[in-house]
């Protein structure tokens, strides 16, 4: 199948409600192929909710979400993952008891197939398959420079490294679209620089499209092709970083505005 020319992800008039609260209010946005799009906004603006709707954890009350031109508004998370959308979580959701290597291997789940019985016996094709995927995972480990911690249980790692392992797990799925929820929250300057470099490398080397939520404006302006601004669940800005930075509505949302 040849890739259609349209945007990779189209969110069209999506609202998400929790009871009477409208967390996301008729938001539309497009993410083009190979783009890095940042979603910014003050706390409670609905950024994570929007991301959860895209990855299938919440379902929109109205509006549609299309991926590669096909509607997928009502799919459940595992099915969304199967389409080629991987994500990380704001509060790091690693499998804490498993080693870093096993955590990343879980990211390969959808790429694996095989007979239950053969697997139970760890025999023949099942074993060969395991080794092939292992090789791929080792490449990701090299890429993200986490060789030294591959056998460490993920729960014992410092926060910054956990975030990196979570990125590795998402990458292991070879996603077409990568959703990152505050990939740099709680990191020091050096860790942030590393993470920026990884995100840019992923985008350039693997051609992965990336949508990320981030609070650090410096980072956002540096790495994103386009910035989408949310405030109180509505979209108030959308454009290249330099443009969004000068937008009055955006400045108001961030700096506060004097109400007469």
């Amino acid at each position: 199948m040849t890739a259609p020319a349209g945007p990779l992800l189209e969110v069209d008039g999506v609202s998400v409600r929790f009871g009477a609260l409208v967390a996301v209010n008729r938001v539309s946005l497009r993410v083009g192929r190979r783009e890095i799009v940042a979603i910014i906004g003050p706390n409670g603006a609905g950024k994570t909710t929007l991301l959860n709707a895209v990855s299938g954890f919440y379902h929109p009350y109205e509006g549609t979400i299309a991926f590669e031109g096909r509607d997928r508004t009502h799919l459940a998370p595992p099915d969304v993952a199967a389409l080629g959308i991987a994500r990380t979580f704001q509060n790091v959701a690693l499998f804490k008891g498993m080693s870093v290597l096993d955590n990343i291997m879980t990211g390969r789940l959808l790429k694996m197939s095989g007979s239950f019985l053969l697997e139970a016996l760890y025999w023949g094709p099942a074993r060969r398959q395991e080794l092939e995927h292992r090789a791929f995972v080792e490449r990701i480990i090299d890429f993200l420079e986490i060789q030294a911690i591959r056998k460490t249980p993920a729960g014992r790692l410092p926060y910054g490294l956990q975030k990196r392992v979570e990125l590795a797990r998402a990458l292991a799925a070879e996603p077409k679209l990568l959703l990152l929820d505050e990939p740099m929250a709680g990191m020091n300057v050096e860790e942030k620089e590393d993470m920026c470099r990884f995100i840019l490398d992923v985008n350039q080397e693997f051609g992965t499209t990336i949508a990320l939520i981030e609070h650090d404006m410096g980072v956002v302006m540096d790495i994103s092709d386009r910035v989408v601004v949310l405030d109180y669940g509505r979209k108030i800005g959308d454009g290249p970083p330099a443009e969004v930075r000068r937008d009055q509505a955006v400045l108001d949302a961030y700096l506060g505005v004097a109400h007469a």
Partner: protein
Amino acid sequence: MLDLLYAVAVAPFRDMAGAPAFLIEVLIGGVFAGLMYSLVALGFVLIFKASGVFNFAQGVMVLFAALTLVGLLERGVPVLVALALTTVVMVALAFAIERLVLRPLVNQAHIILFMATIGLNFFLEGFGEMLWGANVKKLDIGIPDRSFIVRGVQINQLELTAAATAAVLVTVLAVFFQRTRIGRALRAVADDHEAALSIGVPLRTIWVVVWSVAGVVAIVAGLMWGAKSGVQFSLSLIALKALPVLILGGFESVPGAIVGGLIIGVGEKLGEVYWGPLVGGAIENWFAYVLALAFLLARPQGLFGEKIIERV
């Protein structure tokens, strides 16, 4: 005082050294019982790992599997066919449990799921007896309950077969969990539901798989215990013996269930035979629970469990 010390700390070991063949027989008996406990404990561990639910009905699942098997055998179904049919029944049960119990209760607190398994326990108990009757039944699968003697050690053929079967099953499950895609998916679900969903693990499929595997483990446990002591209601009570095994080994550890079972099996047999006379016997009945209590005080996460450290 010195006499007591001698009786507790010296005499039993002197007895052991004095009759090594008998000691080996006791140990074999212990390993057999231990593997049986491990099998039941394994059923708990599988479900607990994958869903965080403590399945109160595991013991009754053993009884139900054994009842179904015996019921089929009594109606003249050949052994292998009966085993296959029982497996089908247990897998069907897993599907039914996922559909009727787990799915409607998804995202509920663990205590609610636990209560649901208590309900399941009573349902299966009544349903099993309704279908197959409540009489004590003899389970004969064609392995003779005979003993033979190797170098002065008496070995029971049935126990040996049971132990070998349990060992194979336990090994396969351990490898399956550690090394394979589905095993890893199971551990992933156990660790973090959201993250598991995000990497494409379908929760429902996983639940059906673990309950099916737990059902198959229940068949093997029911088969072995049933062949040894008849199929009757008390079979469901072996679940109580599995509890100390879980506390010893850690609720989430497959190797823990195995080692815990062996320690308790061997420990209680040795205690009964060599120290029993000192306290008038019956050590076998309480040994497991006292050991579990000691573990709860000293190492609550069990031998193989993960220590939970909360960041404050």
